């Protein structure tokens, strides 16, 4: 599986994504600068966490207008896989690659802690190595992660089984609608989620629940 990590100014989980991909795939991903107008030939594009463009204006809003995002959209249109984590998820909704929006946490505070999640959809390239309904723990670290969409969109997401991860009962850290932590695109080739799977691939750091997400991709793409 060949992968690329997009680097926006003030992305800050780009190294974490790179290290996790190296650990899981044995290959170093291409690091692509935001001004780049070409993507290398890859199977997976990762939009990492961070504060792209300082989160000024709105989280992800400026990144969605960058040169490289035109290429990422093209990649997604062709069915290429895109994984957006945290700020990456925000960029995906701002780019309309995923529906809805991420609003300020209900408690109006940044929150960083391990959170219990439920894998609610395993029929995807990102989640097939999990059991349906499996309980996993990923850390969250965000100030603006409250997922919002109108009821019609939420119904549709649920009806089409596109909610990949939900916060487990009582664990919703940000007030997200219907406990949604991560969603798939219509063609199921784009996943955006607020929790950080790349921070839980190494046992020393207290958990390995994120490994199955990368293993799912590897199995699907190689």
């Amino acid at each position, binding site marked *: 599986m060949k992968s690329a990590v997009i680097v926006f*100014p*003030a992305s*800050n*989980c780009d*190294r*974490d994504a790179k*290290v*996790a991909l190296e650990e899981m795939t044995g290959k170093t991903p291409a690091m692509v600068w935001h001004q780049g107008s070409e993507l290398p030939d890859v199977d997976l594009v990762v939009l990492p*966490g*961070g*504060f792209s*463009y*300082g*989160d*000024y204006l709105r989280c992800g809003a400026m990144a969605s207008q960058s040169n490289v995002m035109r290429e990422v959209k093209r990649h997604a249109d062709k069915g290429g896989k895109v994984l957006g984590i945290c700020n990456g998820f925000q960029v995906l909704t701002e780019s309309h690659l995923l529906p809805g929006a991420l609003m300020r946490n209900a408690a109006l*505070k*940044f*929150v*960083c*802690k391990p959170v219990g999640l439920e894998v609610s959809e395993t029929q995807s390239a990102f989640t097939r190595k999990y059991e349906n309904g499996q309980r996993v723990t990923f*850390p969250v*670290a965000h*100030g603006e992660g409250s997922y919002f969409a109108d009821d019609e969109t939420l119904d549709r997401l649920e009806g089409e089984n596109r909610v990949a991860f939900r916060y487990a009962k009582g664990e919703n850290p940000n007030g997200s609608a219907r406990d949604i932590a991560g969603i798939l695109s219509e063609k199921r080739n784009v996943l955006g989620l607020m929790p*950080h799977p*790349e*921070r839980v691939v*190494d046992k*020393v*750091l207290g958990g390995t629940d994120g490994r199955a997400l990368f293993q799912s991709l590897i199995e699907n793409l190689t």
Partner: protein
Amino acid sequence: MTKITPEMVREHGLSDAEYARILELMGREPSFVELGIFSVMWSEHCSYKSTRAHLKKLPTKAPWVIQGPGENAGVIDIGDGDACIFKMESHNHPSFIEPYQGAATGVGGIMRDVFTMGARPIAMMNALRFGEPSHPKTRHLVSGVVSGIGGYGNCMGVPTVGGEVNFHKSYNGNILVNAMCVGLARQDKIFLSAAKGAGNPVVYIGSKTGRDGIHGATMASAEFDDASEEKRPTVQVGDPFTEKLLLEACLELMATDAIIAIQDMGAAGLTSSSAEMGDKGGSGIELDLDKVPQREINMTAYEMMLSESQERMLAVLKPGREAQAEAIFKKWELDFAVIGITTDTSRLVVKHKGAVVADMPITALSDEAPVYERPYTERAPLTGEPVFDKKKNVLESLKTILASPDMASRRWVWEQYDHTVMADTVQVPGGDAAVVRVHGTQKALAITTDVSPRYCRPDPFEGGKQAVAEAWRNLTAVGATPLAVTDNLNYGNPQKPEIMWEIVAGIDGIGAACRALDFPVIGGNCSLYNETNGEGILPTPAIGGVGLMKDVSKMATVAFKRSGDVIILIGETKGHLGQSIYLREIEGKEEGTAPKVDLGLEKKHGDFVRGLIEAGRVDTVHDLSDGGLLVAIAEMAMPRGIGANIGIAGLPDDIPFWFGEDQARYCLAAPFAEAEKIVEE
């Protein structure tokens, strides 16, 4: 030219004697710009004029110390060609006036101190002290400071891995915000600030210069009164986005060999960075202010020289490398300008609009800055044993203590800090020390900040010793070998003899402990004049300690892990209740003497405990400090909900035994067979 009047001299915080000295050094009346430059460079904040003579007594050397005090941060050898670079610094006065920006720019400033030396910051810590929870300002200050620290550190993508949050009425009008940054570099890629050689380009990088923060260093060197909030315009405004770009751009430039010297523009901005670089390199510097990137129009030379706009650096490049450097800063969309040149005159020359607005010998700003041996008098010692109600129920008292503002869980604070970004945080906040893996290795750094101000008021010497000993103990308790410290000395007005005594005795205490524990001081910061309306804070010499763990898999934590483990207490318990948390929270008294620290016992017990952890024999260790034995056991029990049966024959209600704060103690838990062997040893 502006005529300098006595009023202007006073407004610049200079005494008559200091001004007379300036006249002598200059051989003429200074220009207004020169007066401003003297005022910041000779301020307490920049010159350390009250403490310099005493700081010299601190031990600063060890075989593993690569760079001691005097640079932007200290550097230690952590093996395999790796270096750890760290420092702690205060941003007390600005944070009281404008908590969010004050704390945020404190974080930004200390990060620049570390990355200007070539290190990538890998962990942030902080030591915060606020007034009483019931004080009307406290809630606003806590929430502003915590979100400011988080707002800046989270955006930078550097984990904030721990610290201290305490409350006491002496901080009602003067909070303390001390931030510590730890970074990693290769030993052969460390950058210093000595601008050696003449004819080299001086370049300005980062954000544009505005009118913010003018005279911040002078403000930080004066007492507060009720009108202090009018000083809000002297607080700088932080932009972590630009700082993140500056970090990446600097590290990219540092990967080349274009840099001769580099220094961040912190307190006193362009003035101190240029003067210090020239001073250390033994060269002169000539600046052309027309070339300085400016955010506002019609800025005067005075404003530009004294601005404390954030996210700026000054560097001296090898001649001919400007284009290479400029390309890197263009890529990161940062300002870059050649604003001057190094000379062989040892003078700082500043030009603006075709005129020379300052021309002064650099040594007048550094070596010739005043040094004071201020008089000090010892306060009468507190005597007498504290009186307490011997009938109080021990478990009820424990509950009260665990729920008190100083002892309750700080989870609500550190959950607002991203503490796991960079994917190397092995021990998150809440333990004895934070542990961060050295990226790509099995090694890890342990980091802690400590001080018990309530001990420092009655006995500044023992309090200084205790702060160092507790830091050393906390690093030991996770299994690390303590290597070095940075100190952040927060005190009141040094011109009051009793406060000066607190400072001198505190430094002596720190020195004694650092010597005995082989734990040198490699950098730090003094924050004096922490007073409002004449009331000083508790003396608060915060100690930031760093230790090294060779194998992170052996790390110990405080949490009980198995039912059936035997709890072992290392160290002698005499039941010292003076100045204890128990006395304060249960009896409402701040009385008695501070506990004495026996540094020989500290070393003996600590080395023993560390040996057990390194040998893989124990994985559950907690140092005994605030609240004593019973609080420590409760803190070990709570994380995983594993209880403890600790009935001790003959001592069921012995309050001093359970809550005394004797030093040099640890609590361990180990399976029975192992525990038996440990007890025998």
